[in-house]
């Protein structure tokens, strides 16, 4: 096997050196009755040429990857500068592991520290961790953290939070003695409405997403005041990180915990992963934060370096009392996001956000003007919005794809059976005007 350095002959010699005559004897400490007596029933080895052909053939069956697309809803098509991938492919970064030994891991550690800082800058918070699995698990961890901080057990979640994020959170809290309540969405505005009655002193946190699942930008400021008045925490969820370039930061709006999906920052959509969860909060909650943290440290000569710190929160020390069970996180994806944020930089992040919003506005105008189509929600949006079609959305989108070669967006019925005709359309800087026009034309042509 070409990945194994020692040749069969060398291994024989090594066995002899150990006083063994065959590799099988290496497993003598296993009872005979657990030993597998046959070869595994997996395929024969493939050469590089054959392997690439197999995967290319399978990839060719992913027709959607070849079409202009207006899908968003938690995964976004943004442009990633070429240097993002070339830098994360340096073996110094991608083959290393968690920086347990800081003296020979400063590259990883400094990058994590830079990542934490960038996340704080964009979310408007004080402290960020080294990453969570993704946005959905970050939201679940935020709910668990809110319980730890407040010692309260009810959490109100906006119905306009990404449905999959909600499901994941339900799974995480199922055994944590946390009860999830629901905040309805105003049909007209598309925004979450917070009824005072629900906000009693049993509420640990209120969770809202902005831009929310329907693309509407929530009035976080208003939430913050009322949530804090009730002694609860405001948890803000962001699935489209590109919005940080334009929208007021959750921190500036009074959020206590901000979680986000970082995929928009130079990470391919890659059929759903690997992505990276961003998690940030206020200074005072630093010791309640889940996951890894890099911090500044100095050596005897006073030279600055970075180390993993506040480890007493973590599972390898606190075990069942840890703030989370997470160990391996999304390091390399966090690095990709760090390179992306640095390469695009202050002005680039602003321009991407502006182009997304501008192009979405153009698409809204085009589609809104279509006979029979409407835009049900009145609240301002960033780059996603709901379109109400004259006919059943799923079928319409199928025709759009097959007849007009455009992936037109998401049929909300996938998650919300009660909204059969609604389509969630997402527009980014990668969608050309011509694609948007084709979408509009196609929608018209495909609606029957």
């Amino acid at each position: 096997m070409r990945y194994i350095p020692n040749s069969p002959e060398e291994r024989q010699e090594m066995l002899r050196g150990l006083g063994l005559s065959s590799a099988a004897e290496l497993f003598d400490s296993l009872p005979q009755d657990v030993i597998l007596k046959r070869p595994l029933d997996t395929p024969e080895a493939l050469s590089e040429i054959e392997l690439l052909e197999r995967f290319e053939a399978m990839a060719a069956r992913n027709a959607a990857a070849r079409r202009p697309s207006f899908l968003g809803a938690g995964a976004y098509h943004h442009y990633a500068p070429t240097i993002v991938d070339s830098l994360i492919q340096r073996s110094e970064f991608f083959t290393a592991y968690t920086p347990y030994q800081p003296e020979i891991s400063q590259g990883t550690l400094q990058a994590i520290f830079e990542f934490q800082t960038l996340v704080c800058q964009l979310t408007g918070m004080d402290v960020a961790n080294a990453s969570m699995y993704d946005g959905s698990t970050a939201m679940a961890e935020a709910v668990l953290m809110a319980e730890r901080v407040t010692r309260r057990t009810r959490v109100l979640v906006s119905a306009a939070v990404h449905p999959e994020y909600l499901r994941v959170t339900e799974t995480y809290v199922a055994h944590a003695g946390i009860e999830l309540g629901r905040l309805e969405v105003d049909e007209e505005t598309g925004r979450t409405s917070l009824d005072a009655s629900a906000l009693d002193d049993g509420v640990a946190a209120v969770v809202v997403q902005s831009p929310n699942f329907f693309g509407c930008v929530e009035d976080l400021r208003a939430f913050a005041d009322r949530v804090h008045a009730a002694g609860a925490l405001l948890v803000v969820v962001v699935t489209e990180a590109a919005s940080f370039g334009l929208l007021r930061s959750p921190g500036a709006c009074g959020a206590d915990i901000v979680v986000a999906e970082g995929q928009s920052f130079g990470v391919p959509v890659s059929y759903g992963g690997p992505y990276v969860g961003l998690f940030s909060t206020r200074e005072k909650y630093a010791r309640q934060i889940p996951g890894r943290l890099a911090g500044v440290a100095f050596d005897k000569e006073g030279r600055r370096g970075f180390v993993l710190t506040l480890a007493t929160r973590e599972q390898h020390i606190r075990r069942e009392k840890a703030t989370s069970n997470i160990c391996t996180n999304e390091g390399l994806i966090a690095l990709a996001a760090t390179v992306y944020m640095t390469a695009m930089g202050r002005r680039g992040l602003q321009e991407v956000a502006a182009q997304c919003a501008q192009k979405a506005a153009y698409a809204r105008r085009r589609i809104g003007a279509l006979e029979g189509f409407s835009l049900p929600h009145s609240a301002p949006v960033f780059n996603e919005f709901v379109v109400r079609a004259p006919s059943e959305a799923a079928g319409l989108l199928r025709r759009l794809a097959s007849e007009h070669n455009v992936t037109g967006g998401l049929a909300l019925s996938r998650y919300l059976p009660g909204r059969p005709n609604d389509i969630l359309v997402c527009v980014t800087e990668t969608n050309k005007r011509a694609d948007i026009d084709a979408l509009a034309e196609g929608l018209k042509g495909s609606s029957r």
Partner: protein
Amino acid sequence: MSITKATTHVTQNEALVFERSQAGRRGYRLPALDVEETAIDDLLPAELRREDDLEGVPELSEPDVVRHFTRISTWNYNIDLGLYPLGSCTMKYNSRLNERVARIPGFAGLHPLAPEEDAQGALEVMYELQQHLAEITGLPGVSLQPAAGAHGEMTGVMMIRAFLDARDGVTSDEAKRRKVMLIPDSAHGTNPASAHLSGFTVKTIRSTPEGLTDLDHLRELCASGAVAGLMLTNPNTCGIFERNIKEICRVIHEAGGLVYMDGANMNALVGVARPGDMGVDVIHLNLHKTFSTPHGGGGPGSGPCCCTAELEPFLPVPRVVRSDAEGGGATYGLDSERPQSVGRVKAFYGNFGMHLRALAYILTHGRDGLREATEAAVLNARFIAHGLADTFDRPFDSPPMHECLFTDKRQTRKGVHTLDIAKRLIDYGFHPMTIYFPLIVQGAMLIEPTESVGRAELQQFVDAMKEIAREAVEDADTVLGAPHTTRIGRLDEAAAARKPVLRWRPAEKAAGA
């Protein structure tokens, strides 16, 4: 003997990106906006827009960015530089071919919400990987959704929770619930943490002087009733195979519990023995260990769960399923209609990019190569164990599997501890082993070479360790002051934790950068 594997060479210092930033620099260019511009206030009212103009976010040119990350990267040790013997982490070779596969546009550019009929290739990849993992573990039900080992643990024990509640019909009644999860004292910290997260009360099982699970203690704990299950790592974190595994499973099953196996150490078993054949009910695999997906400086990982047919209904949704059209030809789909499922543990379907790499690993090795890798990994660990047997204290003498465990007992007399030995290894050109884990062994040094290193480098490692042992006696200060060859010396972690500085702020300036 002098240090031959490594030496020192000139390296670049580099400040933080924020310290490097210069107003007005640009590292990007977008196509010009190609639609009529909408007045900003018509897009979004001012009160919803940022006021801080992204103050503090770096402004750099493309060469600045490339140099920054290239420079800091050179401070990292990594697998492509040599042996990286972190015990329990299985730092094996990361194939470039697998990286290429993961970047095929038809996969990297595929949106997770694309209609299933337009994503058949991706679904086939996941389905085929599930099949192979089922065969390798001997457990037919597979979900690729968990993003890492700990995530898989949580998923697995939640499945146990759901199964028991369904079986015992006590979903509602807290009191009647089986709440006790047994975990050996040698277990990895994520085990109790995951059990706790899933609502279990953790009870700890002692290990025997041999480093094995104490059967009597296990029976005792089971007797007390209310046992939901056991979380066992096998080979355990001491690198020893739990030879009583079948009996252990029997005891747990008789007590009405289920057995969860932590599969972090499967690199010792693939192709040789299958957890399903041992009586295990559910296991997680670490694709970033056993199946070589890159560790990425801390992640991403992937922690699929494999389980018995009994437990399959409780796996997370959606499941990736296959339906065969009569007359050949199969189509793949996502199935969420699993009423007994524990639910979702992650948005979408898991770390698909890692699924691609793991499948590429399995297909590249082939049936025989998978077993060959296991044999080579165990052989390498034995080679080191044998080479160091006379020099370092071995807490247990059962033969090691894919990793071997030593302690600093013989060195402490002169005040040299595991940490010092680890730091000194850096000067010898190696990444240190895992230290102070498992917790039950004082001054533990857990060494896992994997199959990806050759005989000569293994010997260099053995020689380095022996040399350090000699220094510990004859020249302790050299060891205590190590490392001596790195850009920066040992960092004061205590001080760092006392006054944590977790982000850059404009005030702070770079020390010597």
